[in-house]
């Protein structure tokens, strides 16, 4: 079987991009500091993009992830400063919020069979409102405990902690999606929910778990974001929504071609981050970032489609 696009094409593209920018801007792009910036800046986005990806495997959309990230990032700084909760308690509460939102999604989308796009658009909008209410519309930044900011800024082996969080999430997701039955059930559900169910898979449970994982990861991303910035902003979620979904969708063009997968998400997020970073160093104006992101998404997904073109004709031509 021929594939127009090898599994590692995106990785090679990333390498080519790094090389090009390094040659063009050796003093600014190719510095340790800049590489660290790219890694650090993208770690929260990568976690969020993985949150978007998990339910997508089973063809469920969670459009609320960015709003969850925004709300939780406010709580993460607000609960210790305004409600004066100890940091560990506040963080557990933050994660619990993510789990609860996921459970609500599971109830509405899986049990009551409401369309996921509509449900999560609704809950996301509600959370945006709650964020404005909780923050009073302003950035929370005063008196943020060091215990929290350390979690986002401490270094191990010269690498900031958020990069490790991201790596841990990716590895765990890779393991459960590839090596545990749950992951197989999720991919089977994405291929055909009714077939998977008739073949004995508890598709409801698999989908519900995916929705809970998504909200929980979004909450985790919110915590990491606040820990790194030392503040919480009611509007920051807007900056994350599209790039997160771009990363999730692009993942089908890397490693496990035609399927959403966590390592593909990481690769895609860094591809986008590197491109944007390099272009800005070349002096491109700000609007180029959006054009680049959009273009990368369409081109990569198009390539993935062509490369699984064999799969596609087979798809149409059953039997």
């Amino acid at each position, binding site marked *: 079987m021929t594939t127009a696009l090898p599994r590692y094409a995106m990785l090679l593209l990333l390498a080519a991009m790094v090389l090009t920018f390094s040659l063009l801007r050796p003093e600014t792009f190719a510095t340790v500091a800049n590489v660290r910036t790219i890694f650090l800046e993208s770690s929260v986005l990568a976690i969020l993009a993985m949150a978007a990806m998990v339910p997508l495997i089973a063809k469920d959309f969670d459009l609320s992830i960015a709003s969850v990230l925004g709300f939780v990032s406010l709580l993460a700084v607000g609960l210790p400063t305004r409600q004066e909760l100890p940091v560990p308690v506040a963080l557990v509460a933050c994660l619990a919020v993510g789990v609860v939102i996921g459970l609500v999604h599971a109830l509405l989308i899986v049990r009551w069979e409401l369309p996921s796009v509509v449900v999560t658009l609704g809950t996301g909008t509600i959370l945006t409102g709650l964020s404005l209410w909780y923050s009073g519309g302003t950035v929370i930044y005063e008196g943020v405990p060091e215990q929290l900011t350390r979690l986002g800024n401490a270094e191990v082996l010269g690498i900031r902690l958020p990069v490790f969080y991201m790596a841990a999430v990716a590895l765990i997701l890779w393991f459960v999606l590839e090596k545990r039955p749950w992951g197989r059930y999720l991919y089977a559900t994405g291929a*055909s929910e009714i077939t998977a169910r008739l073949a004995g898979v508890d598709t409801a449970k698999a989908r519900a778990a995916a929705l809970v994982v998504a909200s929980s990861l979004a909450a985790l991303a919110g915590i990491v974001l606040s820990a790194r910035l030392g503040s919480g902003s009611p509007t920051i979620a807007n900056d994350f929504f599209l790039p997160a979904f771009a990363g999730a969708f692009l993942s089908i063009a890397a490693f496990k071609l035609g399927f959403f997968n966590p390592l593909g998400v990481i690769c895609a997020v860094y591809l986008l981050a590197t491109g944007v970073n390099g272009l800005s160093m070349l002096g491109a104006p700000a609007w180029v970032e959006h054009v680049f992101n959009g273009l990368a998404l369409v081109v990569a997904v198009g390539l993935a489609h062509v490369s699984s073109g064999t799969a596609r004709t087979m798809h149409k031509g059953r039997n």
Partner: protein
Amino acid sequence: MSSALAVEKLTKHFGATTALDQVSLQVAPGRVHALIGLNGSGKSTLVKCLSGFLEPDSGTVLSEESAFVHQDLGLASSLSVTENFVLGRPPVMRGLRIDRRAERELARRALAPVGLADRLDHPVSALSTAERVVLAIARALDGTTTSASSALVLDEPTSALPADEIGIVTRAIREHAGRGMGILFITHRLQEVCDLADDVSVLRDGQLVHSGPVGDMSIADLVATMTGTRTRAAAPPARSGPRGEPVLHATSLSGRQIQDVDLTLHAGEIVGVFGMLGSGVEELGGLLAGRERPASGRVDLVDGAGHARRAGAIGYIPSDRPNKAVLPGLSVRENLCLPSLRGLVRRGRIDRSREHALARRLVTDMGVQPRDHGAAILALSGGNQQKVVLGRWLAVAPPAIVAEEITQGVDVPAKEDLLAQVRAYAARGGAVALLALEPEEVLSTCDRVVVLRHGRLVDAAPRSQTSVSEVLAAMHGTGDDLP
């Protein structure tokens, strides 16, 4: 004489597979032409090249106007019967708007003869497999002008049809041939070739090995041409051991069509459940396997494993293979191993070597071709997909398997092998229910036969006392009931 449809030196490769190898074939106007061959011999590929769905690597297709019914029918299951019927044709306009009433009338007129007139507003998803086939054929026939230069091509139109419906289809085919159309149809039911076809072409491994009038060719002749060998082991003797303990009880089961059905499956026993379209036999499978909720009544699994509704406790093979049995986009291995995954977990993860070993064993046992379990399931021919779907459950060895139309699309020699696998499973203590609209193919495998009529069980008899014609009579409610 010009032909209604002709292909010349058609060749098609899929990677290393040669699906069609220099195939040349003519369908004459006014003749019914059967295309036969073993699973994977290239029949569906030929039809897809004819319809332009696939681009052949080389060769030409000559046809004026052809209508097609593909193996997967191409119906939109959420749309109504009427909407599906008018889908391909230009809308009937009345001023600026679509004249729904006129379209409905069109559909009614075309569908009344095939018994679908009272279901025009039902979604296709509420139709049985057989009703869908009837609809797809009616739609394809509707689009064509019946003339000497037109052709109708059908890919296994009858593989999921009961005897009386086959009659309707074959009559329609005859009628159109009588008006000068050329008809090309694929089938695995060789009796049909002898009864219906004027000409027959045989594909073997992508090559055309025979093309000519049926004349007085017998089924044995056809099989010999398909396989290339004349000797074929006789069918294994029907096993009839003592039946074991009860495994599955259905008690006063009722659903949409089913009423008050009591049925017990025993370990080691194969029960045939037959009924005509509309008898409820299409509904019973999902209920027995616990995949659908009954309106009333219950199904109990009696081995202490708990209630049958527990996902996956009972093996289930639905008749709607493309939509309900095959996971598109996934590999043969993933399709085979899905219900077995939990048993493959070692040290917290699915053990890759065990998974591959299982897939290898199943592919060999079931005779799946090609044997590469990493291949995409949709790269397999229809009959080979069916083998995968059965293998999926034999691997789990559940206490009971409920299978609808288990032999559909499987070629004549492979059918015996497949049924032998079912018998072996029963001999190991499994309970089996084989549901079908047509007793002929599986009757000899059954230890006991029950018949459904108008939603009720009318008869139960050991096979040794039942012939195909007796079962058919019971299905139709004519003649004496079974002893």
